[in-house]
Every structure is written in C-alpha cells, then in structure tokens.
C-alpha cells in the first residue's frame, strides 16, 4: 500500500486494530499439461485487505474473479501461494499444529450450496455437534444442549435433531449450515454466496438471520456474493474484485452511490432496479473477462475499460485513496 499519510483505519491494511488483515495474498493454481505446458491460473494475485472487528465486509465480483478462492485461502481451506493472513495479528499462513487448531475454532465458513455442504447420511444433531467433538469441546449431554441452543438461535425446531438434511427445505438447510458454523462460538465467519441458491422470499429470511446473529454475537463477516443488491444491503463496506485483484474498497452506501473505478461503475449500472419508471443508463462492457492464465499487462480491466489509455497497459494501477475511507486501483479514478 502506498500513500500511508492519508490512510484511515478502514483503508489501511497494516492497521493493528483490524481483526483480519490480508497482505499481498497470492493463490496460483498450476494447470497440468495441455497447450500451455506448465501454465498457472492467477486466481488471487496480490490482495491486501483489512476487516475490522464487528463489521461486514462484502466481497463482490463476477464468476472467475477469484472471490471464492480468496475466501477459502483466508480461512486456510487452501494454502496460500504467498502472502499473509493475519488474524488478531498472528499470521495464519505460518501457523501449525495445536495453535492452528485453536485459532480455527474462531474462524468458520458458511457455504453456498446447502445441499452439497451437508453430509446426507448424518442427522442434523450430528452435523451441528461434529465441530464440538472434533475440537474436544463437548460431548454427550452437554453437546446435545449446545446443539439445541444453537438450533433455536438459527430458527430451527430443536426437536428435529434426529432428522436428515433431505427432510429440510433449502432455506432450512442453510440454517443448519449456519448452526454448524455458530456452534464453536466463532468471532469471524466467511460466508461464500450464502443466499444465492435460495428463492427470493427465503433469501430475506437468511439475510435477516445473519444480521440478527451479527448484532447478538458481535460477529465479523466476510460476505462473498455476486449479487450486488444483497451485498449492498448487508455490508458496512464493500470490496470489488476483478480477475484476482481488488479494484475498489469503500463504505457500502458511498461506493454504490458514487463508484470510482470504471469496473465498479459498470457493475453497478448493470444491476436491474425494481422500479419500472426509473431505469438507469447502462454501461455495456465490451468482450469477456480475460483468462486468469494470461491476465493482461498493467491494469487487468483495461481490455474492457471504456476509458483505458496506453498508460493502463504499461503501468499497473495500485490501490490508492480516492476519498474518505475509500481506495481504488485506477490511474484515472
């Protein structure tokens, strides 16, 4: 990060008060054989971010931008290629053994697909109590009590502990996934597209539940989604990702009202508004997202950017302050 003098608590990822700090995080996947020989997918390519305790940071981007990979690397479901993830100022990427295990209790994940992320052969009680057993926290009667308590908190009938996932609707299954994440009393939850598989009326139930839980337990959320309307609603701040890089970060309302990066502008303009009389001007982007195997030189968005110049091909724009608590990676923002 450059321009430290004007950096503020929310834009300065080196700030020690942040609960989670991601520093220059890189995740590359080797692509075996084929035309490219030993090609590499640059899924996450130098991401720096800070998440404050108690806030919801929304992470948006289109498919293939690397947002899910970033979430998985942050919780260490996948190892980082390079870079650091600090949780309470301790580097998760360097942690091993018992220390890692204990830290992991505080970091949980909620997944997109409530059908695929629950073991169909386990009862709800077993699914929700499994983390308690794995971490040796509670067994038997005590675990049962904890499970019933968590089920009540997420709006599931505790009498259903002996039922199997297929007996529940999609929305209820997502509640089971949330109960499993909550049972260890985490401080930080990464939610990867938690509502995108659900019907509209059910989405609202889960969004409201997540907001209630955050208020009740002072949770910190990284909320990953492609739906900008949902992200706008639930987030305090939003980070926009494009082709492995963060292109803009800012307070949710301001970022949506006055986006600075041309990609953010196009993304917001493309979201339909449920207001027939008030249709907005669209910014239609040319072409498709380039391959993350061979990302463009300089600014990665330049191949589709309506205002790109030669400078954009030659020189990569770094995230720099573009207003109070806001950063954007564009030479012209």
């Amino acid at each position, binding site marked *: 990060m450059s321009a430290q003098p004007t950096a503020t608590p929310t834009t300065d990822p080196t700030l020690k008060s942040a609960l989670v700090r991601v520093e220059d995080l890189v995740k590359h996947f080797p692509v075996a054989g084929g035309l490219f020989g030993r090609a590499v997918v640059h899924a996450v390519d130098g991401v720096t971010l800070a998440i404050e305790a108690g806030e919801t940071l929304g992470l948006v981007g*289109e498919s293939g931008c690397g947002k899910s990979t970033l979430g998985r690397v942050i919780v260490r479901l996948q190892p980082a290629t390079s870079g650091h993830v600090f949780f309470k100022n301790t580097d998760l990427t360097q942690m091993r053994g018992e220390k890692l295990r204990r830290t992991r209790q505080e970091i949980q994940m909620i997944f997109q697909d409530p059908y695929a992320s629950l073991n169909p052969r386990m009862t709800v009680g077993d699914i929700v109590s499994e983390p308690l057993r794995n971490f040796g926290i509670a067994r038997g009667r005590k675990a049962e009590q904890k499970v019933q308590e968590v089920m009540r908190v997420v709006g599931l009938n505790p009498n259903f502990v002996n039922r199997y996932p297929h007996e529940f609707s999609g929305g209820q299954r997502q509640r089971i996934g949330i109960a499993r994440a909550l049972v260890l009393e985490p401080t930080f939850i990464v939610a990867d597209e938690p509502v995108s598989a659900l019907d*509209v009326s059910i989405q609202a139930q889960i969004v409201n539940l997540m907001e209630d839980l955050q208020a009740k337990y002072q949770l910190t959320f990284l909320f990953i989604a492609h739906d900008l309307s949902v992200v*706008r609603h639930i987030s305090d701040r939003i980070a926009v990702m494009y082709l492995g890089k963060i292109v803009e970060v800012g307070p949710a309302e301001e970022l*949506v009202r006055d986006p600075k990066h041309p990609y953010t502008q196009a993304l*917001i303009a*493309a*979201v339909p508004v449920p207001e027939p009389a008030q249709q907005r001007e669209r910014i*239609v982007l*040319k072409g498709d997202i380039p391959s993350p195997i061979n990302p463009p030189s300089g600014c990665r968005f330049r191949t589709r950017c309506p205002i790109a110049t030669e400078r954009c091909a030659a020189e990569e724009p770094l995230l720099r302050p573009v207003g109070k608590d806001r950063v954007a990676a564009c030479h012209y923002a």
Partner: protein
Amino acid sequence: MPGGTLNAVDGISFDVDRGEIVGIVGESGSGKTMTALSLLRLIPEPGKITSGKILYGEQDVVQMSDEEIREFRGNEVAMIFQDPMTSLNPVLRVGFQVEEAMAAHNRFTRQQARDRVIPMLQRVRIPAAKDRVRDYPHQFSGGMRQRAMIAMGVSNEPSLLIADEPTTALDVTVQASIIELLRDISRELRAAVILITHNMALVASLCNRVIVMYAGRIVEEGPTRAIFKNPQHPYTWSLLRSMPRVDETTRERLISIKGLPPDLGKMPPGCKFHPRCKFRVDRCLTEEPPLAEVDPGQDARCWVLMKNVQNPEAIAQT
C-alpha cells in the same frame, strides 16, 4: 404419481400481444415454467394438459396434430432456456447449429439457411461473427452461447419468443447486455415475448406487463408500473419488499415471507397463500378468492387487498 393427480398449473388465463413483453414471475415450484412449456405442449411425461385452450391467433395449440405442433414450434415460436451449454450440441460447430435450426423447418432452403447464419450471429451481436461461426460451443463464453441460442431462436422470425430464466446463469454485466438484446429483438421482429423469471428487478427493466404466480395460480396481473407501484396481493407486496435494492439509501430490515410455498400434494384450503400471509382474514382460510379486477387492467386474487391495509410494514415485520 401413483394413483393421484397434482395440479402444477391450475386455471391460468392470460394473453400476450405482438410487440408486448410479458413477465411471468414466481419462485421455484410456482408453476411458471410448466405454464411456458404447456404453451408449446412440451410438458414432461407423465404430465399433461387436462383442460383449457391455448389460442395462437385462431388456432388451438392443444388440438393441433403432431405435424402441426412441430411446424408451430419451429416456425412460430422460439424458446430460450436458462443454461445455453446444455441446450447446444457440444460436438457441432455453432454456425452449423444455427443453420440446422433454420433448415429443420420448411421456411428456408439449405442454401438460404447457410447464407443467413453469419447475418444472424451479427444480429445478436456476436463479435467477429465471420470468424466465430466455425467455433464449437466450448469456445464461446456463457454470454456468447446465450446469444447463439437467441440467434437460433429468432432465425425463423418467430412471432412468439419464450425466454425461461435466460440470464440466471450469467454474470450481471452479461445479463444486462442479453436483456438489451431481447428488447431490441422483440422490437425488430414485433414478436410477443414471454419472460419467465424469479427476478422482479429484471421484470421491471424489461416487461410491459407482469403475471405473478404462486402455487400454480396467477395471484396478480397487470401493467408493470401498476404492479410495482401499487401491488394489491400480499404475496406480490411482500416479494417486492423482500428483495434488497442496489439503490436503497437506508438499511431497512427486509420483509421476509415466513414458511414455504405449499406442496402441490398438500394444498391448503382457501387461499393458497394464507398460511404465510400476515394480512389474512377468516374468509381466506376456507374460500379461495377469484382473480378479480382491482384497478383498470390490474387483477388480484385476494379477499383483503393491500390498499385496505393500514400500516402494512408494521404488520409484516411482526
């Protein structure tokens, strides 16, 4: 179903005019896709149309012979599905598939069809269409595949275009461009368009008229502006308030609809929405309301109607 019948769609009536874009909205299981499939008599076995008429001009689609329905599907109607990858043949070149769509029906000769392929791809704004015509589907991006599907669909200049969740699998910037394309195509062809979707915001941006479905029934219908401004059915009203909006300025709590849509096999008596409805009265529990006019051009299936409810937000949040 062993020994039973489920009514996925129950007593639906609507009409679509040339040049009009009608949105059918509803959640999973509301019957919106079955309604569209029945227009083409494409309902999967063992489903069938047990009663009713589908009039296309003067012809009744339900009574057509196999040969007639084949010509009707190919020449008069085009259907665009959600997932373009599963609708395209992966081992045939895109251009050839567009050509086949035209040659399969009797409107064009093989040579005419061949000559029309590149103009069709250009019409749906596939960049460098001359070069891409020999590509296979996997060489196309999701948005391009959907454009190719639209090219196939409109190549016979249909007068009715049915688009079933055409942008659900696509990224939002791509979605926006496909919606623009559908709007332009409907104007150019003066075709009637039926857009089936769960996305109310999409309906607002594209459709002239909206049909809201719930549990196999139309619960509300009317001009898009009226439905969005003054929804009268509690389901429509709640659905519009359950969606977060990208342009919202305050973070109000979303209105959620408690519970789930009814199982087709276990339909509640009375109004099918009453178990989830915050505004119900005694009559709703026993007697199903008819779809009745609430304003000129706007119909709703409700005994209460939202215009008669004082302070609905407060009631809905309880």
